[in-house]
């Protein structure tokens, strides 16, 4: 009798634990975000202030924008390593063509970003090259193209429209945050409400089956890489606006890695078939808060990198798909 009741209790407890585990798995990034906020409330003076949170949000906007494009690419089981180089190229274009009105220069940068996406998408979707290799080529080449474009000069931006993106405010909200929110809205809408969004998930889950179900696989893939390229170029514009100049070498450096980190920590699996927009944004904020928490605590670069590694592993670990039950 007793053994039976304990067994029943055991099962119940196990079910509870399973539910909790499943919940943390699906919401791990929010748990981590809450943890870091709680830590800072307790241990970091001056951290939790409106002013600081505003600053931190502004700082992570560039990653957010790049990561959203990356999330869609990863949704198709692909990856886009070219985004950092596209940011640098976009900045270089902006600087080179800042003579034309800012809007024109921005449009040009976005178009070129999109063209890089066409190239990537073509290699992936039509030629059938692994995304990681197809986009690796532009990671190598793009930054050098930016360098050639700048021809050894780092001129500053003076265009009011471009500078307005970073210095302007709408209803007290910084222009960069608005620029990022526009991207978030756009991507969330695309993923949730459009055929294209549904189809990209299907392609990521099983490309062959999608093809046979009438999904325009090539068009979808090209579209996804184009969006990623345009968003990266948009992030390049934001970056340039914010530092008022372009640098072929440091602009967007390693952003592909940061973006992938944000996407994965945000709960989007690298195997495709799923895109978590809000999770990605939360993860980008998490990584930024982590970085600044470390700065608040005067951590050295060495310690920062090690802590970052542990946090990435931890956040992904709690969200991992468990092995066979």
């Amino acid at each position, binding site marked *: 009798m007793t053994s039976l009741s304990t067994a029943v209790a055991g099962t119940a407890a196990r079910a509870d634990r399973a539910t909790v585990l499943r919940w943390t798995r699906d919401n791990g990034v929010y748990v981590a975000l809450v943890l870091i906020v709680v830590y800072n409330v307790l241990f970091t003076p001056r951290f939790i202030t409106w002013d600081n949170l505003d600053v931190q949000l502004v700082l992570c906007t560039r990653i957010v924008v790049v990561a959203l494009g990356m999330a869609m690419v990863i949704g198709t089981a692909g990856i886009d390593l070219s985004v950092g180089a596209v940011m640098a190229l976009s900045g270089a274009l902006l600087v080179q063509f800042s003579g034309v009105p800012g809007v024109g220069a921005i449009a040009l940068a976005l178009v070129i970003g999109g063209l890089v996406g066409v190239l990537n998408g073509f290699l992936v979707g*039509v030629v059938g090259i692994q995304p990681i290799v197809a986009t690796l080529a532009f*990671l190598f080449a793009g930054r050098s193209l930016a360098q050639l474009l700048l021809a050894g000069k780092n001129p500053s931006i003076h265009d009011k429209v471009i500078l307005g993106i970073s210095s302007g405010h709408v209803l007290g909200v910084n222009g960069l945050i608005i620029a990022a929110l526009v991207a978030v809205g756009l991507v969330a809408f695309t993923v949730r409400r459009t055929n294209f969004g549904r189809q990209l998930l299907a392609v990521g889950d099983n490309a062959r089956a999608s093809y046979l179900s009438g999904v325009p*696989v090539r068009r979808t893939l090209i579209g996804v890489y184009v969006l990623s390229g345009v968003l990266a170029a948009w992030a390049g514009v934001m970056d340039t606006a914010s530092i008022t100049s372009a640098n072929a070498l440091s602009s967007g450096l390693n952003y592909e890695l940061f973006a992938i980190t944000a996407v994965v920590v945000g709960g989007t699996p690298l195997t495709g078939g799923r895109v978590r927009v809000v999770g990605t944004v939360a993860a980008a904020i998490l990584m930024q808060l982590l970085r600044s928490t470390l700065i608040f605590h005067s951590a050295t670069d060495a310690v*920062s990198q090690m802590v970052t590694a*542990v946090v990435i592993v931890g956040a992904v670990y709690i969200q991992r798909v468990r092995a066979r039950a």
Partner: protein
Amino acid sequence: MSTTAPTGVPDGPATAGTGLAARPVEPVAATGSRVAAALQRNGVAAFAALALLVLVGSVLWPSFHTLDNVRNTVLGNSYIGIVAIGMTLVIITGGIDLSVGSVFALGGVVGVYVSNQAGPVAAVLATIVACGLIGLINGMLIGYARMAPFIVTLATLFGVRGLVYQLTGAGARTYSVPSDSFFAHLGTGVLLTIGYPVLIAIALYVVFHVVLERTPFGLTTLAIGGGEDAAVLMGLKVRRTKVSLYVVSAALAGVAGMLQAAQLVSASPIIATGYELQAIAAVVIGGTLLTGGAGSLIGTAAGVLLLGTINAFIRELQLDSTWNNVVSGAFLVTVVVVQRLLNYRRAD
């Protein structure tokens, strides 16, 4: 070769491609495919491009094919070559190891430090153990916790670099070895005019080629890449093999870093950033599929030499070095596209 992305693997390889998504699965004619497959596996495109480059270079410039030049190119690329061995094996399982560059730096620091403290033998052992441990962490998280290799090794890429900075006081302490020490000799010594690192790289290629092609461990490695779930159901030692491969990859990266530190008689904490991408490029150019399941070390060797030769080529061309990366990128695309087309031809 199935041209569709693997399906149904809940947490499988990060690199699951959607390549050729829209193409119907092409049945492969049985006859003739074996030759083509063998060529493909051994990176025929890379070999062809390599031969072409060497030929053109030799015709254009007298210095291009001098023994010294060849020796230098090979020596300079032997380190990345050793890294690429581990990368090939990991990629064959459908995984990836992004941490090799950082581990390379760690290998150099540990090697030089221990060599100064306890001699060369201890240095080699300590390097293998220290770097192997990083590989073990990667492997456990990937094999047992079933996390995606891409993200795990991305984290160790950051973490190990931080560790190296920590060990060197962010570069404030430089580690160097006396250039007449036995340890330095590991990197600078020559036998029959060939540098030790080259000989060691060749030996490692031979050993791991045999391991991959002729041992159950190697067959298991290929099987995991070809279908991890099937390999589990077949009762193969999937997890243990995966863990071992990440250990091997890290240990090889560490040994390569140690050898380079020996050659340069000093260890630098900022060395080898971006090596992971170079190694991946070499592996892919060598014909190994990023989706896993097929690949060869001979091809990888060709890929490494090809990338090295491109650098030599650009130097001879006197092109602004800015073009270096543009040309490398273009080359990468060309070679993989050619490979892809060879596959199509084969499919008919």
